[in-house]
C-alpha cells in the first residue's frame, strides 16, 4: 500500500475522471430513456456494466503476473499519453480554440440520432435504445476501468481507486435521478484539466520508476509533478489563446 499522498492522488484522480465519464454516459442513457422509457435504457446499462465487470474479472488476475517494473512502465506510458491528451484538449477548450463539451447539445443530437436510426433500420425503438445505452456505458466505462487500473495497479491501490470511481458514478446517478436532465452544470472542462494534470503526473512518475528512476521524496514527487503540469497547462492555454487570435 502506498503513502497517504499516493492514496489521496489515486482516489481523487479516479473520482474526478470517473465523474467526467459518468456524466457523458448518463447523457446518452438519458437520451435513450427519454426516447423509449427507462426499461430498455436500464437493461442496456446493466448489460454494459456486466460486460465491464467481466473485463475487470478477466484482466485483473493477469496484472499480478506482470513484473512490477514492466507494469509500471507500460501503465506509465499509457497514462502519460492519456493524461496529456486530456490536458491538451482541456487547455485548447479553456483557450476557446475548440468548443466546450455541451451536454445539452449532445443530449439533443443523441435523441435525434436514435430516432433516425430506429426509422432507418426499421428496428424496434426498445432495441435501439437498449443498445445505445449499453454502448455508452461500455465505451465510457472502459476509460474508467483503465484509469482505475492505471492509478491503482502499480502501488496496490486498486481498491481505493475503485471506491473513488464507484463513488463518482453513484454521485452522478443520484444527481441525475433527481434532476432528470443532462448534467450540463458539471464543470466538465475544469475536471478534465484537473484529471489530465493528475494522470500526466502519475504517467511521468511510473514511467520513470519503470525505467529505474528513484524519485527524490518518493510519492511526494507526484505533487511537484502535478504542480508543474498545472503550470504547463495554464501557460499553454494562455499561449493558445494569443496564437488563435493571431492566426485567425
Amino acid at each position, binding site marked *: 500500500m502506498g503513502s497517504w499522498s499516493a492514496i489521496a492522488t489515486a482516489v481523487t484522480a479516479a473520482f474526478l475522471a470517473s465523474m467526467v465519464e459518468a456524466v457523458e454516459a448518463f447523457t446518452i442513457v438519458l437520451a435513450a430513456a427519454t426516447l423509449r422509457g427507462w426499461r430498455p435504457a436500464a437493461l442496456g446499462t446493466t448489460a454494459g456494466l456486466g460486460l465491464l465487470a467481466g473485463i475487470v474479472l478477466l484482466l485483473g488476475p493477469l496484472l499480478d503476473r506482470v513484473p512490477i517494473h514492466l507494469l509500471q512502465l507500460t501503465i506509465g506510458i499509457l497514462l502519460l499519453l492519456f493524461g496529456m491528451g486530456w490536458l491538451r*484538449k482541456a487547455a485548447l477548450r479553456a483557450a476557446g480554440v475548440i468548443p466546450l463539451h455541451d451536454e445539452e447539445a449532445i443530449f439533443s443530437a443523441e435523441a435525434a440520432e436514435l430516432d433516425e436510426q430506429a426509422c432507418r433500420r426499421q428496428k424496434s425503438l426498445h432495441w435501439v435504445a437498449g443498445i445505445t445505452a449499453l454502448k455508452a456505458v461500455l465505451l465510457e466505462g472502459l476509460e474508467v476501468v483503465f484509469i482505475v487500473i492505471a492509478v491503482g495497479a502499480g502501488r496496490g491501490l486498486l481498491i481505493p481507486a475503485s471506491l473513488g470511481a464507484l463513488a463518482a458514478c453513484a454521485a452522478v446517478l443520484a444527481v441525475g435521478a433527481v434532476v432528470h436532465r443532462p448534467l450540463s452544470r458539471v464543470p466538465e472542462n475544469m475536471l478534465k484539466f484537473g484529471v489530465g494534470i493528475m494522470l500526466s503526473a502519475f504517467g511521468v512518475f511510473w514511467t520513470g520508476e519503470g525505467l529505474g528512476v528513484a524519485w527524490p521524496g518518493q510519492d511526494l514527487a507526484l505533487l511537484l509533478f502535478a504542480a508543474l503540469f498545472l503550470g504547463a497547462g495554464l501557460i499553454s492555454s494562455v499561449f493558445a489563446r494569443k496564437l488563435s487570435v493571431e492566426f485567425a
Partner: protein
Amino acid sequence: MNTMLKDLVSELIGMFVAEKQLTLTVLALVALTGLLVDVAGLDELVGGAILLFGSLTLLVASVCRAARAGGS
C-alpha cells in the same frame, strides 16, 4: 455487433492517441530516456528530469501547434 466492436477498438485507440504527433513524440521521448539511462549509463535522476521536462515541453508545443492550426 460489428459496429460496436469497431467503436470499441476506435475508443481504445482514441484514448491514447489524442493527436498523432503528440503520441509519437511522447513515445520517442520515453524511448530516448530509456536508451540514455540503460545503454549510455546516464544517471537515472537526470533521465527522470529529461522525461519530466521533455513531457512538459511537448505538451506546450502540442497545444500551441493546435492553436496555430485552428484547433485540429
